[in-house]
């Protein structure tokens, strides 16, 4: 029998992915199964004759009957020999320390007359306890299906596995459980229950000859001791809080360096292109549209990589499931799942890795609700906007003699993000309907040391997915924003610029100020500028003028762009020290119609509320599109967040003024 393609199947937490990594090494790719957002991993491995075969890693599942999107994919591959992912051989990975439960899936596959090999893992755990499994006896009681041990950590047994694949011959079929056609029971819970119970009885008989008679599996004592602490009603939360504290310290302290470096490099590259290529629209496109677009993608990599590195450690060690365990009840009332907690908290650094981390939530509804509210959590890109506005409109005062008023406002904005996320989640819960029944039923693996290679591979994948899939959308939006901000109706722009140049002749400004003035006029008369002016009547009730309108539209790229746009509009430079000049200019700004100050406590807080709620981030938009596999959800998200921002800001302005 010639094997060209194999698929790995098995329960979750069996070390299936380690074996996949051992087989394929770095020759692996990740994507989605067609039509659904379920991770698909595939790669190649070479057998002893040097021939390469394809290896597909199917999502982990406890049985062939699907209860989630991930498991549905497995069911579809298993039951349809014409499926384009259907392999020549199924390698079933089973946890040797929990063989009874793991064999259920194996016997279902076998009874579907599929070609199978059984691989047992976790021998290290089984060996330390008196549970020895005689693979020869097991193989013979399983009608001579090849059975072998592979160690996912050391790689022991991989060569034997490859040999077994190479030598595979399907032996004569004798049903393990007769009169049972597992695949036909999809959707019939009562028959499934019956069938599974019969199977467990059969598995008990089969294991009698293969298992050491006195075998008894004990939970490792270190896991018991750690659990006494980590799920403790007080220490459990205390430790989780401390872990989060450390994670955020690491992210904010460390990722700032590469991010600053990347931003600097891209500014420098733009400058290089502008100064070395001939002046013209193509150079501008490259220097002001394409490069900042790529920069806007690359700048997220340090945060994504670092956050996923830390989250992968939590996952690998087994701690993540304990977090889910202690948090589940607390977030249930809001329509969230214990598994939503870490993605949401990650979103206070940046919603992008937060949303990407929701893949672990197996219930589609819970996952969707988490994705929809994640951008409401106050991310780090809001900080520059908040800092500018707070220092502009919030008076320097101590409350009760020791609470700094500015710090308090910043804290309240963070709290607002969290409250808004929870409230919206509770509302969305009622709107999103699915056939799936939400459940927890979660395995809590024993604690173990992280496998660094697995973490590394996972990290590379996440970053690659972000660059390739989200990058396209981000780049496209960035080019559109650039084009509409740099071009306007030709006559209008030209006459406005000519006016500035004329003034320069009669009443000369220093060169730098003159350039800033030109930039400001150019933006004001660009298409974006025109839109900003046109929407003035709409944003007037919020206390904004057209200049703020332009800044809001341009900062759809990313929230922090607001500060840069304001600098351009008010024609102050964009250097660090210019932020102070911007503040001075803004504080003096008066409305051209009423003569009143533009930046008051009322309009300033209204603007802060606007930025707390509005989805001003094209990268989030792109990632939500990728993770939900549709334009529908990111559009709904943008709309509801926009509506919240508008009405929230309007109310704030009414109350404050």
């Amino acid at each position, binding site marked *: 029998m010639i094997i060209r393609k194999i698929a790995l199947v098995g329960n979750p937490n069996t070390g299936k992915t380690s074996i996949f990594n051992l087989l394929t090494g770095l020759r692996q790719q990740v994507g989605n199964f067609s039509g659904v957002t379920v991770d698909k991993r595939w790669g190649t491995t070479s057998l002893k004759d040097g021939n390469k075969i394809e290896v597909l890693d199917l999502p982990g599942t*406890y049985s062939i009957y699907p209860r989630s999107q991930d498991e549905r994919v497995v069911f579809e591959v298993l039951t349809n020999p014409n499926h384009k992912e259907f392999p020549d051989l199924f390698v079933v990975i089973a946890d040797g320390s929990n063989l009874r439960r793991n064999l259920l899936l194996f016997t279902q596959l076998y009874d579907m007359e599929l070609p199978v090999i059984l691989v047992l893992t976790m021998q290290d755990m089984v060996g330390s306890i008196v549970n020895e499994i005689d693979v020869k006896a097991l193989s013979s009681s399983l009608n001579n299906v090849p059975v072998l041990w592979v160690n996912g950590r050391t790689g022991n047994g991989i060569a034997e596995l490859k040999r077994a694949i190479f030598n595979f011959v399907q032996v004569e079929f004798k049903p393990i459980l007769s009169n049972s056609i597992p695949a036909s029971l999809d959707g019939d819970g009562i028959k499934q229950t019956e069938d599974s119970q019969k199977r467990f009885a059969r598995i008990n008989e089969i294991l009698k000859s293969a298992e050491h008679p006195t075998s008894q599996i004990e939970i490792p004592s270190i896991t018991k001791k750690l659990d006494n602490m980590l799920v403790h009603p007080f220490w459990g939360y205390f430790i989780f809080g401390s872990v989060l504290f450390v994670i955020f310290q690491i992210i904010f302290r460390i990722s700032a360096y590469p991010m600053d470096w990347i931003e600097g490099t891209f500014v420098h590259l733009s400058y290089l292109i502008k100064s070395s290529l001939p002046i013209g629209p193509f150079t501008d496109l490259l220097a002001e549209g394409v490069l900042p677009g790529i920069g806007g993608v690359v700048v997220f990599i340090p945060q994504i990589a670092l956050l996923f590195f830390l989250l992968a450690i939590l996952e690998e060690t087994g701690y993540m499931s304990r977090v889910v365990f202690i948090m589940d009840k607390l977030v249930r009332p809001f329509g969230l799942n214990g598994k939503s907690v870490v993605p949401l908290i990650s979103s206070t650094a940046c919603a992008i890795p937060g949303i990407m981390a929701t893949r672990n939530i197996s219930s589609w509804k819970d996952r969707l609700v988490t994705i929809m509210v994640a951008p409401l959590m106050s991310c780090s890109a809001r900080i520059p906007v908040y800092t500018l506005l707070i220092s502009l409109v919030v008076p320097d005062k101590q409350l009760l003699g020791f609470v700094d008023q500015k710090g308090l406002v910043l804290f309240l904005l963070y709290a607002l993000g969290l409250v808004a996320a929870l409230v919206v989640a509770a509302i969305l819960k009622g709107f999103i309907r699915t056939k799936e029944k939400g459940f927890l039923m979660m395995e809590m693996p024993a604690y173990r040391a992280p496998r660094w290679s697995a973490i590394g591979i996972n990290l590379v994948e996440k970053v690659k997915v972000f660059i390739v899939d989200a990058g396209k959308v981000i780049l496209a939006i960035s080019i559109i924003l650039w084009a509409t901000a740099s071009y306007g109706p030709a006559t209008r722009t030209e006459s406005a610029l000519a006016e500035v140049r004329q003034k320069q002749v009669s009443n000369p400004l220093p060169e730098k100020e003159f350039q800033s003035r030109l930039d400001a006029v150019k933006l004001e008369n660009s298409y974006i500028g025109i839109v900003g002016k046109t929407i003035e009547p709409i944003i007037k009730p919020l206390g904004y003028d057209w200049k703020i309108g332009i800044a809001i539209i341009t900062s759809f790229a990313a929230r922090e762009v607001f500060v840069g746009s304001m600098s351009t509009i008010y024609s102050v430079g964009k250097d660090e020290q210019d932020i102070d000049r911007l503040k001075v200019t803004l504080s003096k700004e008066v409305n051209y119609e009423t003569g009143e100050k533009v930046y008051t406590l009322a309009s300033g807080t209204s603007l802060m509320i606007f930025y707390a709620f509005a989805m001003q981030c094209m990268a989030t938009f792109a990632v939500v599109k990728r993770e939900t596999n549709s334009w529908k959800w990111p559009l709904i998200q943008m709309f509801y967040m926009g509506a919240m921002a508008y009405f929230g800001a309007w109310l704030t302005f009414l109350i404050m003024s």
Partner: protein
Amino acid sequence: MSDSEIKLQPYFCNCQLLVKVARRNLTNLGLGDTGTIVEVVNHELTPRLIEMGFFPGKQVRTLFKAPFGGPVAFDLLGSIVSLRIDEAKLIIIEK
């Protein structure tokens, strides 16, 4: 009473289910205590509970409970599985 109302009756009073739940279930098991599963009440989640290892005849021990009425973790001899209270109530045991 019209015909359709009479037909709906069994859904409003799933008496069989109520009687079974009133029996001793996994949530009645004290911390550290062991029981044997007798039955899993028929429910949407039953097949999954069975697949996770909660099948009749299996010994189960309560390991720890999350605060505020959160999930409960069980030792299934070979793995630790946590269930929400509602899920654990479906599993009938004897000591």
